[in-house]
């Protein structure tokens, strides 16, 4: 029964996609209700699955079904083949619920946001395909189908980022997103091949079993430890998909797509897939000692992307960099072994980031600009958007009572424990983490203050902004639902979100942590109760200080206007220029890597290909073939056709001509022949 549900959940959006792409335009309302209905049905099914999980309370894989999709040869004597199927554990169930919920609300919001746009039904078709791919990825029990859906999402993001393909910038952005993630995807695929060679199976269950049995992935490939290599390549897949350093360049450009797409990419689907992958593959990362690399990539990304968000004037730009930064937190969480916390942050971030993006969509649609410098004072015009966006901002900044506080605090506590107490050489990890938290609070409140508070800076735009209307249900219901889910109580069971205290359901009720555990129990095996406790309390204090400090600083800058940001900007001009140029990553990739390295290499290979290979080998073969063809044609024409085929006819014809003379109708002629023949035979008989 669960198996059918798991198959049906991704299938429904795919069916919606098929309907939309073929006959969507002919349906009433562009067929948006098909997609909304399909994804809502998936949501209901996901709810059923989710409540089964709550009932079971067992962190292990509790449903798994697979069949041999590709039987391979029995060379080694045993029957082997690629087995694929679906599985469910608690992580799957929670992911399914989150993805379907976000996607349902985003679909709903899109019916308002995209109303009257060009290619309306195609937009919903792609949106459904995107969601369906993500759901397929989540229910996959093996790396192969996971990779297939992973690539499908790459395609969907390509088509949706370039949805307004009339704009050149959109086309550039979608190519950039596709090609950048492609680097990661290729690495991931190589990693998957290494795992296949080692385990002869790509199912997570088999991989977990093989890893816990020990002795897996011994040896080296090209002088690198095999386990490290496999883990690192899988990590590179995540780096590409989840926009981590150094492949983060595509995500900010991805906001060229319509805002609901950004919400979908940044929250529920695309980038979540990357983190989901390393969460699934944690045992492998641990086996290969990749976790520390993971932690550093995450911490560094969280820090440097948050700095970039500070200088953005584009409302979606701020959110895009904040996504990179928050994804950095998740990756950091996986790296330091805060498995459940990283996953929790994935979920909470998805919910409040979807809320933030759709709120920004609501703002953009109202004001018709994305530049925050032209906004201001919008809280009077759109109170619901303002309220929901502020709530989500509190969540991302890590204020108590909000969801982001719970998950981020857990990650930071574990980071502090690992980096500050256990291995003091990794002290950089908590420093990056906490600094990023402070900067996050700063830039998010900067966004709020610039957009909704103060006086309108562009009066013309302000006057033309329509007042938000309660009748626009599909505009504010998604925002309200997601803002509601940004409260901590849903995730920790306590009101403020602080753990070990303030229980409202009687006892310590951290259901999330109870449900989610690493598939192979190595993580945090050594329990330093005191150290954990210390780290936790310390982290709690520091998080609160940095969150409120960042917000306060932001208020000083942009709300009370005690400090002029332009003065700071001028005094830090050099840093500002660096940030303005996004640390010169784009410049580096395009000018150095692509122009100095790729293009000459490509030109060289192009030369080899065109001039040497093509001219001599290919054309040479053509010449040989032409010669052979000429000979064959000669033989065919002259010998076969002329001599044999025509010759047979011609000989019959010539013989006929000769014999025809005898057949002249004169009886005496015939008799003459008879006599002659008789004489001949007589001679023959008598002479011999």
């Amino acid at each position, binding site marked *: 029964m669960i198996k059918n549900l798991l198959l049906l959940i991704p299938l429904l959006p795919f069916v919606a996609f098929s309907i939309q792409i073929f006959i969507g335009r002919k349906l009433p309302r562009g067929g948006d209700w098909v997609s909304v209905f399909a994804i809502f049905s998936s949501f209901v099914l996901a709810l059923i699955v989710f409540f089964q999980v709550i009932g079971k309370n067992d962190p292990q894989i509790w449903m798994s079904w697979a069949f041999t999709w590709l039987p391979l040869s029995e060379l080694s004597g045993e029957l082997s083949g690629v087995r694929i199927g679906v599985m469910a554990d608690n992580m799957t169930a929670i992911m399914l619920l989150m993805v379907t919920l976000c996607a349902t609300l985003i679909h709903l919001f899109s019916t308002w946001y995209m109303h009257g746009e060009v290619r309306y039904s195609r937009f919903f078709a792609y949106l459904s395909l995107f969601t369906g791919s993500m759901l397929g990825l989540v229910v996959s029990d093996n790396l192969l189908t996971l990779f297939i859906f992973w690539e499908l999402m790459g395609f969907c993001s390509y088509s949706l980022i370039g949805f307004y393909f009339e704009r050149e910038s959109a086309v550039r952005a979608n190519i950039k997103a596709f090609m950048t993630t492609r680097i990661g995807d290729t690495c991931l695929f190589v990693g998957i091949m290494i795992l296949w060679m080692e385990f002869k199976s790509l199912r997570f269950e088999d991989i977990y079993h093989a890893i816990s049995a020990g002795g897996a992935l011994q040896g080296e490939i090209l002088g690198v430890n095999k386990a490290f290599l496999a883990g690192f390549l899988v990590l590179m897949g995540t780096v590409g998909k989840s926009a981590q350093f150094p492949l983060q360049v595509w995500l900010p450009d991805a906001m060229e797509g319509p805002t609901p797409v950004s919400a979908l990419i940044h929250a529920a689907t695309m980038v979540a897939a990357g983190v989901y992958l390393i969460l699934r593959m944690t045992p492998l990362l641990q086996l290969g000692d990749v976790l520390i690399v993971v932690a550093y990539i995450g911490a560094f990304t969280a820090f440097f992307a948050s700095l970039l968000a500070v200088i953005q004037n584009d409302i979606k730009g701020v959110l895009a960099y904040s996504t990179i930064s928050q994804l950095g937190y998740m990756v950091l969480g996986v790296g330091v072994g805060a498995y459940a916390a990283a996953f929790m942050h994935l979920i909470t971030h998805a919910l409040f980031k979807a809320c933030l993006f759709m709120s920004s969509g609501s703002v953009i649609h109202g004001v018709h600009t994305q530049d925050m410098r032209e906004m201001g004072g919008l809280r009077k015009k759109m109170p619901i958007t303002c309220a929901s966006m502020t709530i989500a901002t509190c969540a991302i900044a890590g204020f108590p009572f909000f969801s982001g506080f719970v998950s981020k605090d857990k990650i930071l506590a574990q980071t502090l424990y690992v980096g500050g107490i256990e291995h003091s050489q990794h002290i950089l990890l908590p420093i990056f983490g906490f600094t990023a938290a402070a900067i996050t609070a700063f830039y998010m409140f900067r966004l709020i203050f610039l957009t909704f508070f103060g006086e309108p800076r562009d009066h013309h735009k302000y006057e033309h902004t329509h007042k938000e209307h309660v009748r626009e249900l599909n505009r504010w219901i998604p925002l309200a639902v997601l803002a509601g889910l940004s409260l901590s109580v849903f995730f920790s069971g306590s009101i403020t979100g602080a753990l070990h205290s303030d229980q409202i359901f009687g006892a310590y009720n951290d259901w999330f942590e109870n449900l989610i555990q690493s598939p192979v129990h190595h993580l945090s095996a050594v329990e330093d109760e005191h150290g954990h406790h210390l780290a936790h309390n310390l982290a709690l204090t520091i998080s609160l200080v940095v969150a409120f400090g960042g917000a306060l600083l932001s208020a000083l800058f942009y709300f009370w206007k005690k400090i002029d940001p332009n003065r700071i900007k001028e005094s830090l001009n050099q840093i500002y220029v660096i940030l303005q140029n996004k640390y010169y990553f784009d410049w580096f990739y395009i000018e150095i890597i692509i122009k100095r390295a790729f293009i000459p290499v490509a030109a060289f290979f192009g030369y080899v290909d065109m001039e040497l290979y093509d001219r001599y080998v290919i054309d040479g073969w053509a010449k040989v073939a032409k010669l052979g063809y000429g000979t064959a044609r000669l033989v065919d024409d002259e010998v076969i056709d002329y001599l044999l085929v025509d010759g047979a006819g011609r000989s019959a014809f010539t013989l006929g001509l000769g014999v025809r003379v005898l057949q*002249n*109708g*004169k*009886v*005496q002629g015939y*008799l*003459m022949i008879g*006599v002659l023949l008789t004489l001949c035979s007589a001679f023959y008989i008598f002479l011999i």
Partner: protein
Amino acid sequence: MQIGISHYLVISSVLFTLGVLTVLNRRNIIVILMGIELMLNSAGLNFAAFSRFVVGNSEGQAFSIFIILVAAAEAAVALAIVLRTFQNLKTVEIDKIQSLKN
């Protein structure tokens, strides 16, 4: 000079040759029929000669009688055909009778 088989055979072959040449050269059907009679007679003569000189009984001579008989019947049929041909085609020239050609 003793008359032997060779004399008979010589006369027979002369007769046969004359008959063949008549059949091959003459154009009148009547004359060709005469040539055929000549050949039949030479065959009959041969039968009689071999019967008398080689075999020694009269079976061969009986064959001569049969040949004369068959030749008479054949001549009757053939002359009837020639008569009908002449009535239809107004000619007894064998070269002109070519209506089966073409």
